[in-house]
């Protein structure tokens, strides 16, 4: 029963990892590649470490694998956000069939500020004469 359970977890995690690799190889755009790779690889590594926790049901191994899962789930979106922001600011082009780019006119690329945001110098709240 335990062997069947962790075999299922291992195969599921490896299939999600392979989907992530396929996504990073075949997607047409940096941002789509980033999305596919981050989400699928987070789920895949979660399943693989869950298989380790099922294989060795001791408290120290379970705590270690749960710590790795929590760490990966916390840090993977942060890393993906930072890379996506840096790539957008350095002018990586979107896919030619992309239909919406909401940040197109709203970023001040010289000062790295979001126009209309609360830190912006041209924010309407700061221009109000008191």
């Amino acid at each position: 029963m335990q062997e069947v359970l962790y075999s299922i977890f291992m195969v599921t995690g490896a299939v999600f990892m392979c989907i992530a690799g396929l996504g990073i190889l075949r997607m047409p755009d940096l941002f789509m590649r980033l999305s596919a790779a981050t989400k699928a690889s987070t789920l895949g590594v979660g399943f693989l470490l869950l298989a380790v926790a099922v294989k060795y049901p001791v408290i120290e191994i379970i705590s270690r694998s749960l710590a790795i899962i929590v760490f990966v789930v916390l840090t993977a979106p942060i890393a993906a956000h930072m890379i996506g922001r840096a790539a957008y600011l350095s002018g990586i082009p979107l896919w030619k069939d992309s239909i919406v780019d909401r940040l197109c006119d709203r970023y001040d690329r010289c000062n790295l500020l979001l126009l209309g945001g609360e830190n912006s110098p041209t924010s309407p709240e700061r221009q109000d004469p008191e």
Partner: protein
Amino acid sequence: MNMQGLTLIIVVSLLSLAFVFAFIRMVCGPSLPDRVVALDLMSTVAIGIIGIYAIATGEPVFLDVAIILALVAFLGTIAFSYYLIRISHRENAEER
């Protein structure tokens, strides 16, 4: 061949396939952020391979290596993105 050996062969071949895909993207990626994303995916796949290796050899001590690798991969990605932002900021300042 028993059931667990077959499962391990399937799982390791799928993970190696994902590693090879990410490596191809890292070699022929058109820009620097593509390579950084591929490197991030490669380190995540390496964490999974270390977990499978801990199952296959019966020594769960290798999970410590996976913890360290997760930490180092996150710090490397953050450092690369700061570097990219710094470069684009400087190029925009030179254009202005």
